[in-house]
């Protein structure tokens, strides 16, 4: 048994070391309390709804979210808009459809089954409109960046004047959290930029947090059920392990060897 604990602690230690090496980040990001972290982490429903508002009113003019559908907005574990609200949201967008029986493309109001409407028809159009830079699709953005949510949250608040000696080209901005500090997206958030329907004060910090929460959900729409199932699965495994441990002791007691 002693030997066993040695092995087990070795595995834990090893995993820990791997994690810390991989998670090692040089930049200190801004910290905030994320409701979705931890064993029972869940999304803050109101923050998701506000985050969606920030996305639609600010980000969506350049950034697509091609893996999201309007139906997702009403699904469990997400912003959980009511079906009616989600339908209304979908209907507020014009969706290109077709061809119809005459062979023509046409536009119609969006439905729940439609994907989020993209701001540009293609990558080239997006680049042409943004000085050559392609605003990345935001569906899985938080998983595609080393610092994850902390990075995005910090980046949105990381704009400042360039230090002396740093010259920026036209259309390039200084951000202390960006890799290489140069970013082609201008500062988008300013206090009071959006008017939250739930009356929350729209400070830059608040909007950053809300929209980052929304992005976390869009990258991991099943995060809540994952946490819930994980707790149950691990609890089940622990109980079973204890039972098997005592069975093992019982069986091995038939011979004099210690197990």
């Amino acid at each position, binding site marked *: 048994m002693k030997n066993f604990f040695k092995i087990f602690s070795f*595995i834990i230690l090893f995993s820990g070391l*791997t994690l810390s090496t*991989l998670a090692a980040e040089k930049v200190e990001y801004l910290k905030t309390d994320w409701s979705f972290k931890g064993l029972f982490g869940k999304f803050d429903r109101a923050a998701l709804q506000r985050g969606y508002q920030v996305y639609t009113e600010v980000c969506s003019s350049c950034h697509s979210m091609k893996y999201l559908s309007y139906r997702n907005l009403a699904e469990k574990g997400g912003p959980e808009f009511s079906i009616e609200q989600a339908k209304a949201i979908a209907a507020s967008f014009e969706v290109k459809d077709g061809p119809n029986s005459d062979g023509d493309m046409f536009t119609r109001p969006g439905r729940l089954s439609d994907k989020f409407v993209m701001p540009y028809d293609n990558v080239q159009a997006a680049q042409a409109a943004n000085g050559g830079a392609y605003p990345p699709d935001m569906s899985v953005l938080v998983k*595609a960046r080393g610092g994850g949510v902390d990075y995005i949250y910090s980046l949105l608040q990381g704009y400042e004047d360039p230090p002396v000696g740093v010259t920026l080209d036209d259309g390039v901005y200084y951000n202390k959290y960006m890799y290489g500090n140069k970013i082609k997206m201008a500062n988008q958030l300013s206090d009071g930029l959006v008017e939250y329907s739930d009356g929350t004060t729209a400070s830059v910090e608040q909007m950053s947090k809300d929209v980052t929460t929304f992005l976390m959900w869009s990258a991991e729409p099943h995060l809540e059920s994952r*946490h819930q199932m994980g707790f149950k699965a691990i609890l089940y495994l622990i109980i079973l392990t204890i039972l*098997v441990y005592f069975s093992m002791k019982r069986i091995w007691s038939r011979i004099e*060897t210690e197990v």
Partner: protein
Amino acid sequence: MSDHEYTPKSKFGKWFNDRLPLLTLANHLTDYPTPKNLNYWWTFGGILTFCLITQIVTGLVLAMHYIAHADMAFDSVEHIMRDVNYGWLIRYIHANGASMFFLAVYIHIFRSLFYGSYKAPREIIWIIGIIIYLLMMAAAFLGYVLPWGQMSFWGATVITNLFSAIPLVGEGIVTWLWGGYSVDNPTLTRFFTLHYLIPFLILGLVVLHIWALHVPGNNNPVGIDIKKPSKDTVPFHPYIVIKDGFALLMFMIVFAFFVFYTPNILGHADNYIEANPLVTPAHIVPEWYLLPFYAILRSVPDKLLGVVAMLSAILILAALPWLDTSKIRSAVFRPLYRQFYWILVADVLILGYVGAMPAEGLYLLVARVATAYYFLHFLVILPVLGWKEKTLPIPLSITEPILGGSPNLASAKNKESLNK
């Protein structure tokens, strides 16, 4: 293979068994005499079987939803993550399962190194094991390409380009591997096919691995030959089954923690960016389990020699039964080897660490020293140690040290001081 002849009790059983001796096989597997002093390091064989089955089953389901096409692969993975029922669970088990598989295989290999399980008469088991390990690396690499993220694409580019180091035919081979002049759709489809094939090759080799094991029987922590069956052995069922089961459950707890709470920590963030042949990531790094070999590859300035060094680092293991000249198997009775063993473990961990770092400055120097030591260990230290080392006296049977107290090293030592 069993020492006693087995006859099924029922008439049908006897009839069937005479034609296909499946019942004899089942009886052999349950009765299989196993040394009773096996410690928990020996449970990783069973754990690895579990890992393989898990990968095959989850992989099968993923293959039903995945689309092996350069334009659709990334989307189809997101489809699995979002819209397939419990697709996220299946994919996270499969992705983290690969890491768990390697964690277990490294423990399994280093257990063998410590207790000398590769020595006569178990060389064939060991060599089959090395082939399995090579195939595992191939399968893991191919699988990592399938999501068609940035790291997939550029990892595939870097690794396949290694073949271009081969003189004269190198470039041709790379083009042939790619199915074109760059990593593209033909590369993806063939990688998918091979990724699907290899696990079944591994499964077949695992059967051979176990078959070869059942001829001489398990090695054990004391490393001596034992009579089978005897007072030194227990039947595989229920003793080893329950013990392996217990260890497997503990392993599954760690596994589950990764899957449910940090499913992406072992992957690279860049792989959530769709493959883009026009943008090279800042650092191209392989998965953690390949890092030591990546470090060896990069520590040699010449491309061809780097590839040779990397391959040799793995293939040298196959020669281990002959490089280690010591007659004594278990490191328990080899005081000097024991110390070199731990230095080797540290060396490999260091290689893994520098493999993740940029190949420059101090990191590169450390990588070179560690690479040199790695080969020194196998090519010089091990052969010399076998001739020079003064080993401790080994007990005559497992029961002997056990009856003196615990089956540990301490009691074996006591025994030896008593004999003096």
